[in-house]
């Protein structure tokens, strides 16, 4: 495939105007950690916003410091000649409010107390993120995004954009998402939250005061989440019933899959803030543009003004194809331009991050057309 973006550098952008929040309260000021790739054209019409999922951040593509590091989380899909082609598009990716990768969140200092927010950081929602992203667009001089794309929780942001700012979205790509979570999906999030909250080192979210982190709880939350992001097939293919690897810590571990989950949990608890994890899962749970079915989804989507691409993956059981099809059917009934494919994949929910020829072909065809509709060449 095409060339890499090479080394990229994030930028911290301050916003000094208060932001009122959907579930009450406000942030007096905030910073957003942002990466951009490619060049904004003279008409400022070629911007693409990439929205991250639960544990993602602004580092979507390229490498930090050197190419020997791990690339951004969607590096396979963003770059020169790739689906989101940085030779054509100006790509904007940010760490959302409440995150723990540089944007204002529980780890940041509350200007009113001079202390870290910790558990007192206000609840933020997908709608709040979209408002903050709109202010980022204003800051960058982007009146309208050529496209807004995201997978999972990121897809929910793209959907919310099409509803909240229809005039500012040219196209929306909503991948492995849902119009709102099912009870089962919320239940998984609750298990993850409980794992964190029951960790003795959690201290009601004030763990920083005790100079500890609830590493065991966050690790366990990640392990549960991780299982739901994979599929029975992919876990079977990757681990089967094979024994632990000898070159890694195998103490008290009977099977390779256990070792893998523990490793994932440990890695994650070292990099991800517990209060942010709770906040992000709550944002997922509360997302519901139908306002608890008080407005039918086709009606909610009737004011959208963009082209849609919806993609799902056959073995995704956390955000199953039938959930994506709810979005598709509502768009059809609202008479909106929508394209949809249920992609064959063994990789469960994680499939949206993983290279796949058909996925790339369809995603690229859609994005190439977005570019063509801007007046560019195919």
């Amino acid at each position, binding site marked *: 495939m095409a060339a890499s973006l090479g080394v990229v550098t994030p930028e911290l952008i301050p916003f000094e105007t208060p932001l009122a929040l959907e579930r009450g309260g406000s942030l007096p000021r905030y910073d957003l950690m942002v990466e951009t790739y490619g060049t904004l054209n003279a008409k400022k019409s070629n911007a693409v916003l990439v929205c991250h999922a639960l544990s993602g951040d602004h580092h979507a593509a390229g490498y930090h410091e050197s190419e020997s590091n791990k690339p951004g989380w969607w590096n396979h899909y963003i770059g020169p000649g790739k689906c989101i082609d940085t030779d054509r598009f100006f790509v904007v990716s940010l760490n959302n409010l409440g995150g723990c990768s540089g944007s204002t969140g529980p780890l940041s200092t509350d200007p009113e107390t001079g202390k870290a927010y910790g558990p007192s950081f206000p609840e933020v929602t997908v709608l709040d993120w979209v408002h903050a992203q709109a202010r980022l667009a204003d800051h960058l001089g982007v009146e309208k995004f050529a496209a807004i794309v995201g997978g999972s929780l990121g897809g929910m942001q793209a959907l919310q954009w099409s509803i909240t700012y229809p005039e500012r979205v040219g196209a929306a790509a909503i991948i492995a998402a849902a119009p709102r979570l099912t009870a089962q999906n919320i239940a998984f999030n609750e298990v993850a939250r409980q794992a964190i909250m029951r960790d003795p080192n959690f201290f009601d979210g004030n763990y920083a005061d005790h100079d500890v982190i609830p590493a065991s709880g966050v690790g366990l939350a990640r392990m549960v989440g991780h299982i739901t992001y994979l599929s029975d097939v992919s876990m079977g293919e990757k681990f089967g019933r094979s024994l632990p690897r000898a070159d890694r810590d195998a103490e008290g571990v009977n099977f390779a899959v256990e070792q893998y989950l523990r490793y994932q949990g440990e890695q994650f608890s070292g990099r991800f803030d517990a209060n942010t994890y709770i906040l992000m899962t709550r944002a997922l749970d509360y997302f519901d543009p139908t306002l608890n079915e008080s407005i039918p989804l086709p009606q909610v989507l009737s004011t959208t003004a963009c082209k849609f691409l919806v993609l799902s993956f056959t073995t995704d059981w956390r955000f199953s194809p039938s959930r994506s*099809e709810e979005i598709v059917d509502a768009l059809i009934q609202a008479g909106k331009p929508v394209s949809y494919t249920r992609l064959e994949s063994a990789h469960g929910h994680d499939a949206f991050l993983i290279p796949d020829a058909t996925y790339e072909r369809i995603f690229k065809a859609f994005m190439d057309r977005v570019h063509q509709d801007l007046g560019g060449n195919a």
Partner: protein
Amino acid sequence: MISHSYQIPDWIAKNSRVLDLGCGDGRLLAQLVETHAIDALGLELDPDKIAACLDLGLSVVQQDLNRGLSNFNDQQFDTVIMTQTLQAIRRPDLALSEMLRVGREAIVTFPNFAYIRNRIQLGLAGHMPVNPQLPNPWYDTPNIHLSTFRDFEELCQTLSIRILDKDTSNLSGKRTWLGTVWPNLFGEVAVYRLTKES
């Protein structure tokens, strides 16, 4: 590759809403967008063909026609098209009813099984026909519900479907003189424009 029949564009109103069931690579819809400025949606199963439709800037949804059109509203489209697909559907009768539920008019084309070449292969040689019109052997064919002009018209009557126009073309989508005179014997492709009896 069978080209769509020449009559179809004449039966489409400018700026109308058109749904194409089994739209393939999107050639017909893209042409109608160009010439008739239609608001187009295609349904297709094959991801490669979906990608080809996206290349043409069309909206296309992956959907198995055997599962019906229950995700569509009544009378959502001016015209619902189905070219050379009816014979491959599990229940052509239900498909036709659904087409005229979601659309005001339907355009349907299918291979005429009573075409003279088929009659010769079946009636004289005693074989299920295999030819450019029906290229697959009987044991491995998507064409599970073959019919003729006469059969189709009987079904329309049963379903209270009114035939607005009826025509025929050859496999290249062109008019043939003999087919026009005697469609059930010399028409390779049956072409119908339908609406629901009011």
